[in-house]
Structures are given as C-alpha cells and as structure tokens.
C-alpha cells in the first residue's frame, strides 16, 4: 500500500541489540568518547541470542562427551542431526508464527492430517506426487488456520486449539483409525532415510529451507514487514503493511514446514498413523523457538538461533538417553531443563497483545 513518505516508518531490526533499560550499567560504560563503538559491538554479539545458544551448544557438547562418550560416535551424531532437522522444521514453523505475534498449537494435527491425506494416494499415483500432495495439503491446512485468524479475527490460541481437535479428528476419520504402510514408495522413504553425499536428506532439505528463510526474513521487505507486524501491529497497520497477507503467508508456511517435518519422520518409520499427531511436536517446536530467544510477544527472533537451539535440544536429549538414566528420568530432566533454560533466555519484555 502506498503511504506518503513522511509517514513511512523505518523498521529497525530489533534482535541482537541490547535493550537499554535492562542494562543501565552497560550503558554507563559505553560513553562515546572512549572506544565505545567496539565495546558496543562486542556487547551486542555477546548478548545476542545466537551467541548464547551457541555457548550452550558447546557446553552440552563438552559435558556430553564426558558423561556419555558414545555421543561422539559418527552414527550417533548423524542420528542427532537428522532428529534435529525434524524437530527443527516444527521449531521453524513455531518461530515464524511467533514472529508475527501469534501462536500455532495445531502443528501436530495439521501434520498428521496432511500426511493421512497424502497416504490416500499411496499405490494410486507415483510417490513423488504423493509427497507433493502431502505438502500442498499441509499448506492448505495452514491457510485454513490463517483465514480463521485473519478474516474471522479469532485469537490464534483459540483458533489453533480448535483446529488441533478438528484436524486430529479428521485424520482419524479419513484413515478409519488405520495405519498406512509405505514400503513400496522408495522416493518417499528416501526423504527420511536417504543420504546426499553422506548427509541425511532431512538435514539437506532443512538447511536449504533455513537459509532461504534467513534471506527472506533479513534481506527482503517481506521479512522486515513480518518483524514489524509482530513488534507493533497497530503501527505496522498504520504504516501500510498488509497484516492480513503477512499472517496468511506465515500460517501457510507454518503448516507447510510442520508437514515436511512430519514427512521426514514418517519416512523414517515407513508408516503414518492418525495417532502420530499427539506426539507433542508443536510443544517441542514452541519450546525450541523460545529457547532460541524468540519472543512470545512477537517481533523478536532469529532463524539462526532457532536452528542452533534445535540442534542443542536434540543433542541434550541424546546425552540424556545415552547416559543410561532410563526413559522416565529423562523426561524429568527434559522438563527441568526446559524450565531452567527458559528462565534464563526468555525475553524479559512482557507487554503487548499476545501475552502468554
């Protein structure tokens, strides 16, 4: 939309810049007269979410290699990176949605419903068509979410809670509760089990997608509008950003990426069943996104830190499992870590609309 020049607001990239009111002490040391500029730079780097998550990754790596040396095995690391590609897709979806100040609880159900829809084509068409159909279904379901939220102006928590149940039930309905096996779909299975130059296929796809999205979000106008929408919807609207369109696109992407993550998972397992939506994927994705410094209030988050957070989280789970604690103790630790991590890395700004 065309807005006269005086009213155009320049969007400032908010992540990575220290929030002055949090750190008055730092501000005092940054007098322009001294070598303030480089200190400011250093301060920016050190307090950025990417750096923090990277540090955490290194800590987990070091401690893990001491307590569970099996972690360092090549096959194990391949498992970890493949697993983080899968959860990373959900985390990416969650990040995108959080960036515009919304939340999506239906990612697990969207994924499973789309996969079931795709599975109906098994044996009917080639498996490549099946893959494409599944992804398209996921995108359309995301679109449904987006429409309910933008056109009907429903709060995203409620809307996605509703679609979570609706899509979950529809997945059962469409599949009559049956699990679908995919042994005769080699391309489909390749999506999960295959390797490209020794790197698991899910990782290759995820890296490409993350890079593309990074470019989109940081270097295009679209990306800046996304951040603006989340940071201050009213101001964004007034300065001509088409909020509806942005949110629709985001929800479509979220559905698409969640479905892709689920596709990788089901390819690994040779099957998909309607109960797969209940695995807590959306919650894991949300936790990773927040762990990566994405703000629940919107407008702040980084693709890179989400990616690093996904890897760190997966590595952490791996270390827990390998250390022989037992399934249930692992779960206890997972919960405790979540609490501890979020206490330290959660954005301290707690105002605005989507309070949670």
């Amino acid at each position, binding site marked *: 939309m065309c807005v006269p020049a005086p009213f155009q607001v320049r969007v400032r990239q908010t992540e990575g810049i220290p929030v002055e009111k949090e750190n008055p002490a730092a501000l005092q040391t940054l007098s322009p007269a001294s070598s303030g500029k480089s200190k400011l730079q250093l301060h920016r780097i050190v307090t950025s979410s990417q750096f923090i998550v990277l540090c955490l990754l290194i800590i987990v790596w070091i401690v893990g290699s001491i307590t569970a040396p099996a972690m360092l095995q090549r096959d194990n690391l391949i498992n970890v990176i493949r697993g983080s590609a899968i959860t990373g897709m959900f985390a990416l979806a969650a990040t995108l949605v959080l960036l515009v100040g919304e939340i999506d609880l239906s990612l697990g159900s969207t994924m499973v419903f789309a996969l079931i829809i795709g599975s109906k084509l098994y044996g009917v068409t080639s498996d490549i068509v099946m893959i494409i159909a599944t992804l398209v279904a996921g995108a359309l379901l995301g679109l449904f979410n987006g429409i*309910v939220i933008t056109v*009907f*102006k*429903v*709060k995203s*928590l*409620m*809307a996605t*809670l*509703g*679609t*979570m*149940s*609706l*899509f*979950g*039930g*529809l997945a*059962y*309905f469409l599949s009559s*509760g049956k699990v679908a096996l995919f042994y005769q779909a080699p391309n489909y299975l390749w999506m999960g089990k295959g390797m490209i130059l020794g790197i698991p296929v899910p990782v290759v796809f995820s890296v490409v997608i993350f890079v593309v999205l990074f470019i989109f979000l940081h270097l295009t106008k679209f990306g800046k509008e996304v951040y603006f929408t989340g940071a201050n*919807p*009213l101001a964004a*609207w007034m300065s001509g950003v088409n*909020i509806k369109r942005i949110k629709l696109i985001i929800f479509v992407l979220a559905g698409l990426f969640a479905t892709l993550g689920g596709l990788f998972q089901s390819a690994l397992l040779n099957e998909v069943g*309607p109960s797969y939506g*209940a695995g807590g994927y959306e*919650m894991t994705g*949300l*936790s990773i996104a*927040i762990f990566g410094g994405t703000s*629940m209030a919107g407008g702040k988050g980084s693709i890179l830190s989400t990616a690093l957070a996904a890897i760190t989280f997966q590595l952490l789970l791996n270390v827990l499992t390998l250390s022989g604690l037992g*399934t*249930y*103790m*692992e*779960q*206890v630790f*997972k*919960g*405790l*870590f*979540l*609490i501890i991590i*979020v*206490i330290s890395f*959660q954005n*301290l700004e*707690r*105002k605005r*609309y*989507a*309070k*949670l």
Partner: protein
Amino acid sequence: MNNKQVKQVLGDNMLLIIIILLVAMGALFTDSFLTLYNIKNLLYSMTVYGFLALGQSMVMLVSELNLTQGSLLSFAPTFAMFLTSKILGLTGRNILVGGNYITGGLVLYMVLAILVGMLVGFLMGIIIVKFNVSSLVVTLGMMYTLGGGVFFLFNGYSLYLNRLEGAKWLGTAELFSIPVSFVLFALVSGILIWAMKYTKLGRRIYATGGNERAATYAGINTKKWKVIAFAISGTLASIAGLIYSSRVESVDPVQGTGYQMFALAIAVVGGVSMEGGRGTLVGTLMATAIVALIFNVMSLFNLFSWYQTMFIGAIILIAAIQQAYNRKSLV
C-alpha cells in the same frame, strides 16, 4: 425483531443455546438420556473436567497458562500416597500390601494431595512471576517433570484403593441421588464465582489480567495475585485428582494424561480470554456442561470417538468466531 437483534441475542446466549440443543438431541433421539442414571453420569463427568477448567480459567484470567493440570491429576494423588505410606511407615504401620493394595491412611492421603497440588501451583506461580518468564513453557516443563517423576514413586504400578475403607466415598457417594462430588463441585464453583464477583480477590485478579501495567501503577501487587491464581488452579487440579482416583478406586501414574487441553478448551469456549481480564467463571461452567454433554450424548449415539474430537474442534471454532465478532478490533 429484526435480523441484527436476533443475531445479538443468539450471540449473547450462544453457550446456553448449544446446551439446549445438545439436551434436545439427547432427549429426542435416545431413550436413555433423560433417565436418572444418565443424568447422574452427566453430573459425575462434569466434576473432573469442571475443576480443571475452573483452575485453568483462574490462571487465564491473569493472562497466564497452566499446562500442569493433567499431570497433577496423577501426580498429586500418587505423591500424596507415597508420602502417606512413608510417614505411616515411620510409625511402624505398613499400608502398602501385596505390592499394590493400599489399606490405610485415607485422611492423610487426601489432605496431602490437596497440599501437593497447592504447592505445585504455588511453585509454578513463583517461578513465573519472579523470573518473568513464559508460563506456557514453564508449566510445559513442569508437566514433563511430573509426568516422568510419577513413575518413580511406585515403579509404575497402579495402586488399588478398593481395600481402603471409605476410599470410594468421594467419587461415588450420593446425597439425595445427587453425586457428592458434584455437590462439592457446585459448592466450590459457587464460592469462587461469588469471590470473583464480590470480593477483593475477584477485583484484583480481573485488574491484573485486564491491564497488568495499569494495575501495577494503581498499587496492586500483580505478582501476588498471579501466584494466588496458580495456587488455586493447582489445588483444584488435585481435588479433581482425588475425585478421579476415588471413582476408579485406584491411583494410576497415567491418569489424566492430556486433560490440560480439555481444561484449556473448556475455558476458551466459556469465554475466558487468553489475554486476561475477560470472561466469567459462569461461562466456564456452561462450557463444562457442553463438553460433558457432547461426550455423553455422542456416546449414547454410539459414534466413534473421533467424531467427538471433531465436534469439539468445531464447537471451539464456532465459539471463537462468535467471541471475535463481539469484540471488535482493528487489527
């Protein structure tokens, strides 16, 4: 009455209309809906969901979320039983017989369960306000912790309560044909509704949720009221857990899995807003009735459970759209 007025009336009383429709469906199309036995079933099934939904509503009214309620349904009774058996064990009395059967300590167990629920809620509240963090993630983490920890208490066994005198009273006794658990539920919700409307508790909670900053500037200790809301929700969840355990005469590590989603769904259908400060407990009660009715009527129709899930999803969406309609916003 013109179109607009009809829409207005429909919109305002949406929940009541859904209840009436469901009751009509049940009464007209099945012959067992209106029997005394079935109505009692309805009341029984409302209690567990209802307590959880009330707790969730209290937390949502201060614009937070509590995902631990499902895991508290199993953790509170199990941990309470664990403590009871340890405490009584110190006095030389062994209440755990044959590996699975509980034979004593009923009162202590019930009191401890409520305390455990209150403490967990309190702890959640303190962490959330002190560190100013997202309640969704913290309660999620606690949910995992409690869900895993409960398996350590009794090695994953279910505990039988059928040899414990009076254990099944709370869940199955009746007062003039009305289940005691429902009477308790009605009493507690009555007290809470009255408190929210007429006492300081209510005013503070609505103020905290409605506009936290303004409330803080007005001198209200918003942190304190948030912690109170969490403590209440934890207590209500543990009461629900006691009723559940009493009705099935056992304490399982897996009971209540996934119930936090029900609680959340009921609260939002009942009109409690995620942003806080908006919605009433009366709405929550009606939404509880709706969910209980859906389960009841649909199972009388012998429909598969996935129809119920879809139906609930549809109801949530309809209620959400209707509420959005009522609340005009620019963006």
